[in-house]
């Protein structure tokens, strides 16, 4: 495989910067959210993103923005939604590039099974017929406080989501801007070509052994959370790690590098692994889990 040239890296970086700039026009604040989403979108063409937050923080705004950029389908999930309804709708939109799922955690078991198949295999089985889909993004939103009509989304389904983006609390200035400032207007659009380009770059970036060792060391730390102290199943599995590598690679490129630094992963471990904790096995406080991940983050940053 060819070595990536400096110009290419520069281009990836500028695409990333542009994307962040564009997102700045969509959403006030939420720096980390933007970073995670931009990276996830640009590093792969079939990222599945779960947006978690209380009402009114801009989950739907963001997913709507992406929906406008791509050929998309929006399904508002309710507890009485039937799998056949989902299948019907999807069947009619086989060429979609983005699937928008509103209030995902209201889905009933059967609907979740349908989604599971769709996410995992990129196909649906309907009356014995299988219809397959191209690569598409998934933007699912869920409200973590609402309790009416909520099902526990099984671990297997949650695991299909590459990242779970939790919205942050707004700072004072951000609140002021939201409430009294000008309304944001975004005229820019994302370019599909760019995304394909960045994805291919991520694919073609071959890591040196030093970077690989670094990544393995980081994964070891996260794995050790699962297996060593038996307290927490940190959701670290090969699928998660694979996506983590993509994200790390992309972030290195976006920073103008062809090697990995601890920071490339440390920033993302909450999004990558927190939702993969098996809630049915361990009843754990969210804050506890976050603390454990925070500690892990600190350990990761100390890797040399």
């Amino acid at each position, binding site marked *: 495989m060819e070595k990536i040239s400096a110009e290419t890296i520069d281009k990836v970086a500028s695409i990333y910067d542009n994307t962040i700039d564009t997102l700045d026009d969509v959403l006030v604040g939420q720096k980390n959210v933007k970073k995670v989403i931009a990276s996830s979108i640009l590093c792969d063409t079939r990222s599945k993103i779960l947006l978690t937050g209380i009402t009114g923080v801009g989950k739907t705004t963001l997913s709507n923005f992406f929906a406008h950029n791509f050929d998309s389908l929006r399904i508002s999930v309710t507890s009485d939604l039937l799998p056949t309804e989902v299948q019907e709708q999807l069947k009619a939109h086989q060429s979609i590039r983005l699937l928008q799922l509103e209030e995902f955690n209201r889905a009933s078991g059967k609907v979740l099974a349908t989604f599971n198949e769709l996410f995992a295999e990129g196909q649906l089985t309907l009356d014995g017929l299988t219809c397959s889909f191209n690569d598409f993004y998934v933007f699912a939103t869920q409200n973590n406080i609402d309790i009416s009509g909520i099902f526990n989304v099984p671990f297997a389904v949650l695991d299909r989501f590459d990242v779970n983006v939790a919205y942050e609390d707004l700072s004072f200035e951000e609140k002021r801007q939201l409430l009294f400032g000008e309304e944001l207007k975004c005229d820019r659009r994302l370019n599909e070509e760019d995304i394909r380009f960045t994805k291919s770059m991520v694919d073609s970036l071959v890591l040196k052994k*030093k*970077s690989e060792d670094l990544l393995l060391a980081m994964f070891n730390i996260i794995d050790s959370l699962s297996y060593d102290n038996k307290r927490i199943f940190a959701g670290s599995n090969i699928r998660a790690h694979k996506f983590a590598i993509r994200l790390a690679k992309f972030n290195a490129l976006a920073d*103008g*590098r062809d*090697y*990995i630094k601890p920071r490339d992963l440390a920033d993302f471990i909450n999004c990558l692994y927190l939702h993969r904790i098996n809630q049915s096995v361990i009843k754990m406080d969210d804050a506890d889990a976050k603390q454990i991940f925070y500690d892990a983050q*600190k350990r990761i940053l*100390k890797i*040399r």
Partner: protein
Amino acid sequence: MKTSDEVKNNLKLILRNGDIFDNVCLREGVGQRKYSFLKLNILLLSRILYIGVLLGEKIKQYFIKPEKVKKAQDEIRDVLGVNVDFIKYKEVIQEGHDKEKFHIADFGLAILYLDDYVEPNTYIDNLQKILMFADTYHLRKIYLRINDIEDHFVDVDLRDFKIIDLRRMLGGYLETSLNQDLLCLTTDNLRELIKKLKSSNANKDYIRKIGSQIQDLVISKALDDFLFNDDLDTFKEIVTGRLELLLNSDSYYKDKSYGKVIGMVSLNNDTVKVEFKTQKGEIIDTKFMPLWEYLEVASYEELLNDNLIGEEKNLCLLSYLYLFLCNNKKKGNRPDFVYSFYDKIYKRFELKRKKKIKKIKGLYSKKYKNYRNLTQYYSSFVACALIICLIGAGGASADFIKGYITNKDSNISENLFNNLFLPYKYSLKLEFELLKDPIYYINKNVVEFIDNISSSTGDSYDYTFETIMGDVKTLDENFELPIYFATNYATDSIYKEGNIQYSTSFPNTFIIEDAEPLFEVSRRLNKTILKNLISDNRLDVFRTFYPVGDNYALISVRLEDLKNGNTFVINYERFLKNGNYLNSQDIDYLLSFNDPQITYTYGISQKDQNIFVDSLQNNKVYTGGNSNIQNSIIKGLGLSEDASLEDILKAIKNKKYSRTPIYDHHLASSIKLMDENEYFETIASMDSLVCNLAATLAVESTDDLIYVVGYLDDGDGYLSSKESHAWAMNTKGDIVDVTPSTVVSEEDNIIIDILSWGIKNNIHVYTLMAFIANVLRKKFGKKVILNLKVMKFNDLLNNPDIFEAYAKINEVLYGGLNIPRKSSKEALVEKINSDFVGFSKEELDSLKEALKQEANNRLAIKLVDSFPFIRDNFNEIKRILEKK
């Protein structure tokens, strides 16, 4: 009539306010009084006021009468009928880690009730009285001792109330025996507490109520006895016995292996011990359980269940009565104790007054005192600062700035020092001396005193207070005493930061000659100096005063103890024999001197030269002779290049004399920056000189003069520090003293100069300003310094190559391709912080080393140096950068 009144009023006005001329003059500021005396008085009074405050405190202390307060408290106690203490709010120091502050009664009064042992009912009555009193007079806090309540009542739950200890409440030190836990109650709390106490009060009525329900003849008889004679112990014994009997009356059980067994029950307080025995008396099992559990009821209160009937009810009631009596504590033997805390303190106060004890324990601690003083200090400082700042700061700062601008040569710190510190020092000294001996100083010596203090700013050493170095006494009345007494001569000179430093030496040959003694110089020593003089078994008497002039020589050295007249003499004979060596006997003898004095006796040598001059000739040390310096001096003096030595010396001598020439010329700071030639040129060009500078100029401008230090006697019979002098000498012993003889200004006017200068410059305001500046520096200094540091760091960030440097650091650290990404400064700082937050100092050092070897990028190394700073002050840096 009306007009005449108006006229009267107008005339009064003119009389009061002055005529038009006066008013115009006042308005224009012409001929205004200068209030110099007022200012001078304020200068002095400020300190006298301080003494006044101190005296005032003492007087106030004398007039404070604790008896009055005691009487007041006693009178209230009489009305109230309870022995309570009244506490006024006290500031409480925060102690230890507990940040909670206890305020008593919100700046009002509170009641402390420590009880004599009284009946529970009386106690409750007392509390009710206190409650009423507190309600009537709006006392919001009541303090009760927890032990009192626990002694009187059973099972009172005090968890709802706040508990503090007496020591903390009074904020002072309390000996442990006095300290106790208190309940801190509001009136509402007290009401609640009274309710609780009433319900749990173990009084006779309650025992009667329960006892009368028990249908048992023994118990009812015992109850009657108890109600009659109050003998609780006997009653309890009877109840216990009866209960045990009842419990054991039906105690046969069936056991699987042993068959019929007997359960023997014994009581101990609320616990039951059940021993299971076979009929043969063999113990097979022992159990302990609470009584109510044995009776198979859920709890203690359950024993009063109304649903029970017959014998079972009897048993339960009896058990209840028994448990009640168990928990009802007996009157203990309590120590004899003055229960009122304040009574105790007052008692000690009276004992102290009668001088039976030395110290009253349990009063305010030192810590508390300091704390109070601190608040006073701050408040007085703030008040003072406000007033004086408002009135004087504007004008004063203007003066100060003007002074600074006109005085460009000196730097700001020196200027501050000159303007603030020195005058303050002088005025303090002046007052001190005036206080010490007013008549003496107000007399003619004021001039001398001022002379002294002005000399302390000179560039020679500080000889503010005159120290007498030696008494000169003539032994032959016709003999004229020498004036110059040399001590050392220069062997080498070094120029260093505006100062010529001479290394000096004294002659090391010592001749004692038999000659007629003419005069002597004696010097008082103390024991340590004497000890220092005796070193290596020798008496180091060379450090003497060498009279310069004729062939003066030392004849003898005499040490005497002024206390008892013991003497020790080294004369010619002794010196020939032993030199100045001492044997151990001599040393012991000398060290026993209590008030030693050393006396050198001189005469005129017939053979040899003066010992000092002789030494100069033998050693031939000249420090001068540098042609560059000579040229500089000639240039500075304004002479032509071919000027002779005589011209030079004359030019120096013709200058004026001032004790503080460098200070007068505002050169004190700038002279330090000059090189040697500049220095000499500057010194030579000054209008006025002091002796050592004049001598230096003379010595350096030729190559056959020697710099000599010693004393120039003014004929007063003693050599003092004030008479210390420097001059030049040639090897023949001729004195070349070029010290100017014309004095700069009339010394008599110095006092007026200094005082008016001090008053003019508002020295107190300056001192205050310096003080405020110091406080501000302490408060905001860190912030300012951080800002400066960030500004410096900002310069680094503004470097266009900074992003390349950062990329380089990463490249060295991780290897591989790294294209510098140019973003904002803030983003870079954030990135640095996140990337390098975990790096230890060693790791950063090794990174720097690697950078040096691999990339040799100076900017990158500089950036790495700033990493710890970024990490420590990340938030502040970010904020400051964003502001900019």
